[in-house]
């Protein structure tokens, strides 16, 4: 009699054979297909941009990976001189000479990656950034391109057809923090601390064939979350020849005890000079409205009011300006949008009066900051009067203008 265990074994051990001649013929066909795919040029989604980037055979660097490696392997690097540690040491050293870097950051389930082009100065500080942020990263804003240079950020909101220019330390800090992950000089000490504290386990595989990459797997203990490590495992691929990292994968531990890939980063064009034109918006569509918040006062001054009080005041004065058709003032409160554009945007909706303005509530989207200020308006559209509740409005402090508050969206 067959027991269930025997049945399982039977299924597991039941074999088929494949015809060796057919195997070879099929493999030959596959290799031809493989050759064809290698010859196909990759889809170029942004030809103008791509042409500006100096192309070269990859000398890739995943500096973030360097960080993690350096940190997680600090004991290996400095206490045990092994071949793998030596490679990592070389990688860490190489990371100190980074001047240019192109990064693609992928998220599982999202087709389009975030892309960054970074230029560092002689001291290794970030000098210029160009970032392409896909719509999934911020659906309300839509896809946007950010150029950061000399403390000033230019943000092109493609969907909103606007270019916002700001000079704000908070924004700069936020942007800088997001790319610091790729700068080993800043993060290594933190990871060294983790390793020394016993919060990570490292596995290294260094193939004897030098054409194959070193694979470093860093598995973090749950406590690492407290130290700002958002993932449970990082796997790095290091080019043995260049001693540079080519890609980095991040894994999250599932309830089933498996490590699931959640995002990955690929590094290109290490130290290949990026065309300066990449850090300039020189060919924006003609219908893009430019809002330069660095050359005009935006919003209203807070004075002695509390944050909640100024938020209510901003909303009230905005709609009063719209009702009075004072589009210059409305535009100034609404982030500095030119009066002409404001008038065009409000041509289809006539606000008759403000019915009520409620207490501000913290903005529900993390990272936005400020408040949502729910309100009710009486409006007239196509000759019909009705009550209207705008989505926001969202109110927050003006970028780079201390003590001033403005509306940033959700007004109609």
């Amino acid at each position, binding site marked *: 009699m067959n027991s269930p265990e025997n049945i399982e074994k039977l299924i597991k051990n039941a074999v*088929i054979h494949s015809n060796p001649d057919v195997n070879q013929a099929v493999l030959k066909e*596959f290799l031809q297909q493989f050759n064809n795919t290698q010859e196909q040029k990759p889809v170029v989604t942004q030809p103008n941009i791509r042409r500006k980037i100096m192309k070269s055979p990859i000398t890739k660097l995943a500096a973030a990976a360097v960080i993690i490696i350096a940190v997680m392997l600090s004991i290996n690097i400095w206490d045990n001189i092994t071949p793998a540690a030596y490679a990592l040491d070389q990688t860490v050293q190489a990371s100190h000479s980074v001047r240019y870097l192109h990064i693609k950051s992928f998220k599982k389930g999202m087709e389009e990656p975030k892309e960054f082009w970074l230029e560092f100065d002689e001291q290794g500080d970030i000098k210029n950034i160009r970032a392409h942020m896909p719509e999934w990263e911020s659906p309300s804003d839509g896809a946007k391109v950010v150029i950061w240079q000399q403390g000033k950020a230019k943000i092109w909101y493609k969907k909103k057809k606007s270019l916002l220019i700001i000079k704000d330390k908070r924004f700069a800090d936020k942007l800088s923090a997001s790319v610091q992950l790729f700068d080993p000089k800043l993060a290594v000490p933190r990871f060294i601390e983790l390793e020394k504290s016993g919060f990570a386990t490292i596995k290294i595989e260094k193939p004897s064939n030098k054409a194959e990459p070193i694979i470093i797997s860093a598995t973090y203990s749950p406590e690492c979350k407290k130290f700002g490590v958002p993932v449970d495992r990082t796997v790095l691929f290091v080019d043995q020849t260049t001693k540079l990292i080519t890609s980095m994968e991040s894994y999250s531990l599932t309830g089933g005890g498996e490590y699931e890939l959640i995002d990955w980063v690929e590094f290109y064009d290490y130290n290949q000079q990026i065309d300066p034109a990449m850090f300039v918006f020189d060919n924006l569509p003609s219908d893009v409205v430019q809002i330069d918040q660095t050359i005009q006062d935006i919003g209203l001054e807070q004075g002695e009011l509390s944050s909640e009080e100024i938020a209510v005041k901003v909303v009230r004065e905005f709609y009063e300006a719209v009702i009075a058709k004072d589009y210059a003032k409305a535009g100034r409160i609404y982030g500095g949008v030119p009066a002409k554009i404001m008038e065009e945007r409000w041509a289809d909706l006539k606000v008759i009066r403000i019915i009520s303005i409620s207490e501000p509530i913290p903005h529900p989207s993390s990272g936005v900051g400020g408040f949502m200020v729910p309100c009710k308006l009486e409006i007239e559209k196509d000759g019909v009067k009705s009550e209207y509740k705008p989505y926001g409005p969202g109110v927050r402090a003006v970028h780079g203008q201390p003590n001033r508050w403005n509306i940033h969206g959700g007004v109609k």
Partner: protein
Amino acid sequence: MLEDRLLVWKFKHGSKNAFCRIYEKYRDDLLRLAISLLNEANVAEDVVHDVFTSFIQNGKQFQLTGSLKSYLATCVANRARNENRAYQWQHNPGMDAVKQVESSSSRPEKWIIITDEFRRLSNALAKLPYDQRETVLLRAQSGMKFRQIAKLQNVPIKTAQSRYRIGLDKLRSLLNSEVTK
């Protein structure tokens, strides 16, 4: 796992040898799974062929999130399921039918060579409802976890476990009755 990860990395970076290794490593397992699921040699061979073709075509975008073996097995299972639906077989034809179809194959030579032991097992497997057969094979043959099978079949884990248990019981009955005949 690291070997597969390395193979995938090399494959994505244009290594023919890496693809050859993946093909050699998993080809027979996938053919075995496909023929066990479909009981039709030509269709099974086409399914495996299509899985590798798709793997090549999408290689640059491919990201390994679990084991490569499970990934490829899932690809085979998905395609086999589609084939199964497409043909809407009213009755499982069993391996006798396989022989007939094989004889009318357009391939100059058979890719899959079936042993007598495998034929006997497949005849029994063919009598299981498709979902149970798929569950039993993915678990016992391909080593997939119930969680992965449940996700593939879009059912709760307990359903996948139940399908496995019932399928295994039926299979045991079928094979035991065969022995006692």
